[in-house]
């Protein structure tokens, strides 16, 4: 809708950009952004305005403000991965996905906050502090929360965004941008999407280039897309997908961007409900919602079947081993010599490296590096690493069997519960929390399948809850079509945030201008 407004001249790219920048300033307490590229954003907006004046916009994304997670390289803009190791590191190049968005005329507002090096499920473990879920300040949440005492202000009751792409999710959810890039290795895009009430798409592994995305687990990482509606996600996907010679893990097949049809007849669809996803700890609320969703499809004429993915519960253990092993390898590049933090210790190369890494990494990162190295020791290699790779194949095969049996799309919950208050969340350590929260999203990364979180309803506490659809490899069109149908059925409410109302009052008259397509 915003794109149409830009085309018709009802609003200009610079106005839009300035609105977003000022809204970012008003919502600073969310801590969603690490770096705000105000000057370059305004320049990009001005260039876009010129193009619209000439009647030659580059496409739907021309002039649309976007945000990018801070583990993507952005030329000339600091890229930190929320770590001391990369503080002050100014990327010399743009990640392919960033370049593609800029080539389409998108306006890059800034870099968003995350867990350090994307390790975590709360966006609480970065050096710039935790990200606050915008819904903590929404009327919907405040109405449902009972203040314990008059002096306990809303400051202490805020809930987390989920992670690790929490900053991006918060940015989209609070209307400071129209789309954001995240990354998804174990659920890092879908988890915060569910907690923040936005659409979070994890594309098939190999569809979108990882060139410029600072790697965590090379065999599972993908760039993730966060938007306020499924149609927007399809538009962004259309501009990002496709082979990249700079990333040899992208497939060579030709990708044709698609527009999503408005599905009305779901009778030919087969929805699978994996029974193992009724995981321990799944809240009653979400279980009910999941059930209702299944009924929704069934009542509309779709075939809804229970299926089994027997190795689901080992997915998280498998991930733990493979992730730490790949992390141990990927983090080895941070030695202070060529970029990033460098310690003053100068006695020997090894001691300099050790000191640099001691100073640069936080506990979570160091912990994973050490665990990874343990699993890769000669005496442990077969027992842990290779074993995990074998289990990975079993997990991937589970999915193959289910899809081969005629199921088109799987429907599962995305998270175990709605967003937890920060005070509660930090009571357990990062690994425990990740193990708990990644359980429903992780397997899709193991198998490389596309998956999407669609915001479904508000919980009893007034916080968003989402459901996840998992599709077949490279069948994003089918996946998104189903997701769009579902989105239309559930009519997820818009966040009621004071700051947004104040800012967008003049530009948009009605509430529905949440999307750009």
């Amino acid at each position, binding site marked *: 809708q915003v794109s149409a407004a830009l085309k018709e001249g009802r609003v200009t790219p610079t106005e839009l950009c300035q609105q977003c920048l000022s809204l970012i300033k008003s919502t600073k307490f969310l801590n969603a952004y690490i770096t705000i590229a105000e000057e370059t954003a305004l320049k990009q907006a001005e260039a876009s305005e010129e193009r619209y004046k000439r009647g030659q916009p580059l496409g739907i994304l021309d002039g649309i403000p976007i945000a990018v997670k801070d583990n993507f390289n952005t030329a000339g803009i600091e890229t930190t991965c929320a770590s001391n190791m990369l503080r002050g*590191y*100014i990327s*010399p*190049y743009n990640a392919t996905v960033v370049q593609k968005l800029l080539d389409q005329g998108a306006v890059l507002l800034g870099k968003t906050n995350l867990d350090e090096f994307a390790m975590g499920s709360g966006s609480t473990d970065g050096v710039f502090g935790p990200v606050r879920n915008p819904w903590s300040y929404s009327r919907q949440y405040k109405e449902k929360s009972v203040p314990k005492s008059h002096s306990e202000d809303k400051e202490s009751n805020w809930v987390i965004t989920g992670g690790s792409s929490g900053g991006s999710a918060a940015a989209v959810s609070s209307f400071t941008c129209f789309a954001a890039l995240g990354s998804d290795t174990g659920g890092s895009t879908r988890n915060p999407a569910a907690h923040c009430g936005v659409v979070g798409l994890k594309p098939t*592994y*190999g569809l979108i280039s990882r060139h410029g995305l600072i790697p965590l687990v090379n*065999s599972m990482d993908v760039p993730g897309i966060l938007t306020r509606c499924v149609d927007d996600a399809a538009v962004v996907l259309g501009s990002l997908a496709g082979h990249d*010679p700079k990333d040899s*893990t*992208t*497939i*060579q097949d030709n990708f044709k961007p698609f527009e999503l049809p408005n599905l009305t007849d779901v009778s030919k669809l087969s929805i699978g409900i994996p029974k193992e996803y009724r995981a321990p700890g799944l809240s009653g609320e979400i279980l009910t919602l999941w059930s209702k969703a299944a009924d929704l499809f069934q009542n509309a004429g779709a075939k809804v079947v229970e299926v089994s993915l027997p*190795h689901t519960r*080992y997915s998280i*253990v*498998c991930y*733990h*081993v493979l992730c730490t092993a790949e992390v*141990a390898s990927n983090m080895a590049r941070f030695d202070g*010599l*060529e*970029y*990033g933090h*460098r310690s003053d*210790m100068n*006695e*020997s*190369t*090894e*001691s*300099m490296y*050790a000191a640099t*890494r*001691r100073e640069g*990494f936080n*506990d979570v990162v*160091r*912990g994973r*590096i*050490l*665990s990874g*190295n*343990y*699993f890769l020791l000669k005496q442990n290699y077969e*027992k*842990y690493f290779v*074993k*995990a*790779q*074998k*289990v*990975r*194949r*079993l997990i*991937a095969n589970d999915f193959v069997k289910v899809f081969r049996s005629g199921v088109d799309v799987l429907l599962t919950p995305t998270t175990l519960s709605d967003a937890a208050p920060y005070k509660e969340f930090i009571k357990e350590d990062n*690994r425990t929390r990740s*193990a708990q929260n990644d359980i429903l999203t992780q397997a899709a990364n193991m*198998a*490389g399948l596309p998956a999407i979180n669609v915001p479904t309803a508000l919980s009893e506490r007034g916080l968003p809850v989402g459901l996840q659809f998992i599709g077949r*490899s490279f069948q994003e069109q089918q996946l998104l079509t189903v997701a769009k149908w579902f989105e239309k059925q559930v009519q997820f409410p818009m966040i009621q945030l004071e700051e947004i109302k104040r800012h967008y009052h003049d530009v948009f008259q009605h509430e529905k201008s949440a999307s750009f397509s």
Partner: protein
Amino acid sequence: QKVSVEVLDHLEHLALVDFRDSEGVERLQKAIEFADQLHEVNTDGVEPLDSVLEDRCLYLREDDVTEGNCTKELLENAREKVEEYFVAPPGNIPLPKLEERDTFLQGS
């Protein structure tokens, strides 16, 4: 079984990262216990999976130079450099042994 100090020391050497305190060591212990659950799964006759794209051919491009000449940009991010070199401290000095290192493990 707890991990021996020799292995812990070995890991610190390999990773060039320190455990820092008993919490760090505990973290490793718990990680191993967690990973041990893998042994419950029967993987006889299963091949390890390296990549989900294993059924496809790896992309090979022509051996043409398409980029480079960015010495200046690359050097900008390094702290210590001389002309077009990254400067590193002397390399043939190994990390001090456990007894001589300032590490938490010394006390164990």
